[in-house]
C-alpha cells in the first residue's frame, strides 16, 4: 500500500534543486505572453466597431472574473454580491466626475479606493460566515447597494440611470472603440499578471491552503481571517475598477449593473471558465459575454438554449472549461 521509498537521491539532488527554481518563472510567464499575443492579434478581426465593443465588454467582465476567481476559486469564499462593488465603482466614478467635478481618471481611482475601504470594513464580519451563509450575506450586501442606488434618484438618477462624462487621460479624451480596446487589453493583462503573481506567492499558497483546510493553514501560521479579507478586498478593487471603466466606456450607467442577477452572472462566468484558474476566468468571461450576442437569432429560444448550454457544460466539464481542457491536453501530450 505504501509507495516504495527510494533512499534519499543524493546524486541528483544538486541538479534537481538547481534546475527547478530557474525553470519555474519562464513557465509562469508563458501563459501571460500568449494572452498578450491573443489580445494583440484580436483587433485584426474587428470588422466594425460593434465587434470591438463586444471585445471591450469581454475584457471588462474578464477583469472582474480574474479578481473574483481569486476569492471563489483559490480561497473558496463564495460571493454573490460582487456586482454591488462593480456598481459602486461605476456610480462612484460617475458621481465624483459629475457632481464633485473631480477629473475622470482621479474619480475612477478614488472611487475604486473608496470601494476597497468599504470592502475592508464590511469584509471583516461577513467573512466569519461560511459556505451558503457567506453567499447569502454577500447577496444581501449587493442587494442593499442596488436598492440604495435605485432609491437615491436625486443623486443617481434612479432606475433610469445617469449619464457619465467621457474619460480623459492626461488631457486626451478616450474616444472610439479601438482606443477603449487597447486600454482594456492593457488593464486585463495587468490584472492577470497581478493575479498570477499573487497565486505564486506565500499569500497565494495561504489562500489555497485555507480553501481545503482552514485549521491546517492556521497551524502553518496563516491568519485565515486576515488572508480572506485581503483577497476579498482585492477582488472588490478589481470589480470596482472595472465598474468605473465600464461607466466611462458606456457613457451611461443604470442600477442593473449592481443587481444580484449581475452578481450571479459573474459567478457563473468564473465557475464556467474553471475555478482556481486565472485563464479559466478569462475564458469564462469571453464565452458567456459572447454567447448572448451569438444567440440573438434564436429570439424566444435564447434563454432556453443559454440555460441548456450552461447546464451541459457544467455536467460534462464539472471543473470548468479550462481545467478540464488542460487536463485533457496533459493526458494527450504524455
Amino acid at each position, binding site marked *: 500500500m505504501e509507495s516504495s521509498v527510494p533512499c534519499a537521491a543524493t546524486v541528483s539532488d544538486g541538479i534537481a534543486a538547481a534546475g527547478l527554481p530557474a525553470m519555474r518563472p519562464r513557465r509562469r510567464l508563458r501563459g501571460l505572453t*500568449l494572452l498578450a499575443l491573443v489580445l494583440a492579434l484580436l483587433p485584426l478581426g474587428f470588422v466594425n466597431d460593434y465587434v470591438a465593443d*463586444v471585445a471591450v465588454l469581454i475584457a471588462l467582465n474578464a477583469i472582474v472574473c480574474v479578481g473574483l476567481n481569486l476569492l471563489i476559486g483559490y480561497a473558496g469564499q463564495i460571493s454573490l454580491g460582487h456586482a454591488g462593488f462593480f456598481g459602486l465603482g461605476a456610480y462612484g466614478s460617475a458621481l465624483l466626475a459629475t457632481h464633485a467635478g473631480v477629473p475622470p481618471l482621479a474619480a475612477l481611482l478614488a472611487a475604486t479606493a473608496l470601494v476597497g475601504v468599504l470592502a475592508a470594513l464590511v469584509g471583516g464580519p461577513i467573512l466569519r460566515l461560511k459556505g451558503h451563509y457567506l453567499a447569502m450575506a454577500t447577496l444581501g450586501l449587493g442587494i442593499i447597494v442596488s436598492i440604495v442606488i435605485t432609491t437615491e434618484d436625486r443623486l443617481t438618477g434612479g*432606475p433610469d*440611470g445617469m449619464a457619465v462624462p467621457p474619460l480623459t487621460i492626461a488631457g486626451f479624451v478616450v474616444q472610439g472603440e479601438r482606443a477603449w480596446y487597447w486600454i482594456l487589453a492593457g488593464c486585463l493583462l495587468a490584472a492577470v499578471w497581478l493575479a498570477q503573481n499573487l497565486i505564486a506567492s506565500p499569500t497565494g499558497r495561504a489562500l489555497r491552503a485555507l480553501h481545503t483546510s482552514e485549521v491546517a493553514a492556521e497551524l502553518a501560521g496563516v491568519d485565515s481571517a486576515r488572508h480572506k479579507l485581503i483577497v476579498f478586498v482585492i477582488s472588490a478593487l478589481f470589480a470596482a475598477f472595472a465598474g468605473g471603466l465600464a461607466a466611462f466606456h458606456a457613457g451611461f450607467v443604470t442600477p442593473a449593473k449592481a443587481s444580484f442577477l449581475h452578481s450571479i452572472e459573474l459567478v457563473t462566468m468564473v465557475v464556467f471558465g474553471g475555478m482556481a484558474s486565472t485563464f479559466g476566468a478569462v475564458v469564462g468571461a469571453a*464565452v458567456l459575454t459572447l454567447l448572448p450576442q451569438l444567440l440573438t437569432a434564436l429570439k424566444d429560444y435564447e434563454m432556453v438554449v443559454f440555460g441548456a448550454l450552461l447546464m451541459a457544460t457544467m455536467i460534462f466539464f464539472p471543473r470548468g472549461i479550462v481545467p478540464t481542457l488542460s487536463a485533457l491536453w496533459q493526458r494527450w501530450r504524455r
Partner: protein
Amino acid sequence: MNFRLAAGKLVRAGAIAAAVALPVTSWSADEPLRVGAFLSVTGPAAFLGDPEQKTLEMLVERINATGGVAGRKLQLFVYDDAGDAEKARTFTKRLLEQDKVDFLVGGSTTGATMAAIPLAEQSGTPFISLAGAVGIVEPVRKWVFKTPHTDRMACERIFTDMRERKLTKLALISGTGGFDKSMRAECLKVVGKYGIEIVADESYGAADTDMTAQLTKIKATPGVQAVLNAGFGQGPAIVTRNYRQLGLTPALYQSHGVASKEFVRLSGDAAEGVRLPAPALLVAELLADNDPQKPVVVAYKRDYEARYKSEVSAFGGYAYDGLMLAVDALRRAGSADRARLRDALEGTRGYVGTSGVVNMSNTDHMGLDLSAFRILEVRGGNWVIIR
C-alpha cells in the same frame, strides 16, 4: 500547475472568430430599407416590449405585402435587450455598425433609450423612442424623437381631472421601476400648478405580493381625497385589490402604464371606479364616429387582435406610431438619406396615430398634446370614456 494556457487560448480565439463571421446580409438589387429595433421583449419590461415587437413585425409584413415604401421593401432587425441598458447600448451599436440600419425605432424603457441616445446622435441616425420619460425630448436632441405621451402629460391629465372633481389632497404610491419612479418625479414637479398637495408618498418593490402596509399608512393619513398609483405590470393590480381589501374610499387613479384590459381582468371587480389616462386605442369602438383617430385605432386593434389573439395595449400602439411616423416621413422625404428623413420627421404635421394627432416641430420632437390622453374609468369590467 498554471501553464494551462494553450488550451484556454484556443477556445478563446475560436469564440472571437465566430463573432466576426456573423452573417452580414447581402445587398439585393433595390436595397431594402433597414429598420433597427431594440426592445425589452423579456425581463421586467416584457409587458412593454412584447406587444411592441409583435406590432412592428405585423406592420413590416403588411407594408411589404403592399409593395413597401416607394417601391423599397422594409427589412426589420429586432434585438431583445431584456430591459438592460448596457445590452440596449451594445445592440444599438450592432444595429448601426453591423446591420447598418437607416433609422431606429425602439428603446422600450427610458434607461435603454438614454443609453442609446449618444450613439444615435454621434452616428447621425434618426431614433424614434418608445419610452415615456420627458427627459428624452427635453432638451430637444437633433436626432431623437419619441411617440408615447410623456409621463408629465399623464400627471397633468390626471390633475386636471382631479381639479374638476375638487380633489386637492393626493397620496402617491409608486413602484421602483424606471417607468414608475420617472412618473412619480414628473408628478411631483407639476402638482403645484394644479393647487394639489401631496400628503403621502409610498413605494413598493417590483415583485412584491402585498402592499397593504403602504396603503394602511395612506389610509391613516388625514384628509386624503385621491390616491395615484404610478406603475405597470402586476404591481398596480395588487395595489388595486389591496385598496378594496382595506376599504379605502378616496378616488384611485392608475397610470397609463396599465391602460389595458389585462389590468381590469387581473384586478377583478376591485377595479370598479378606477380612473386612468389612456390613449384612444383602448376604447377604439367607443370613440365618436367623427373622431379622426377612430379609423386608425379600430383598424390596428382589429388586425393585432386577429393575428395575435390577445388584447391590444397602449405600448403596441406606441410602436405602431413609431414605425408609421417613419414610413410617413420616408414617403415625404422620398429618400432614405438620414438627414432628409430627420427633417421630414421633424416636419410631421397632423399625423393621426394611435396615441393621438402628432404635430412635431424643431422644439417638440413628440408632437402630442393633452388632448391625446382620454380619462377612462372602469365600469362593469370595461373602460368607459369620461372626458
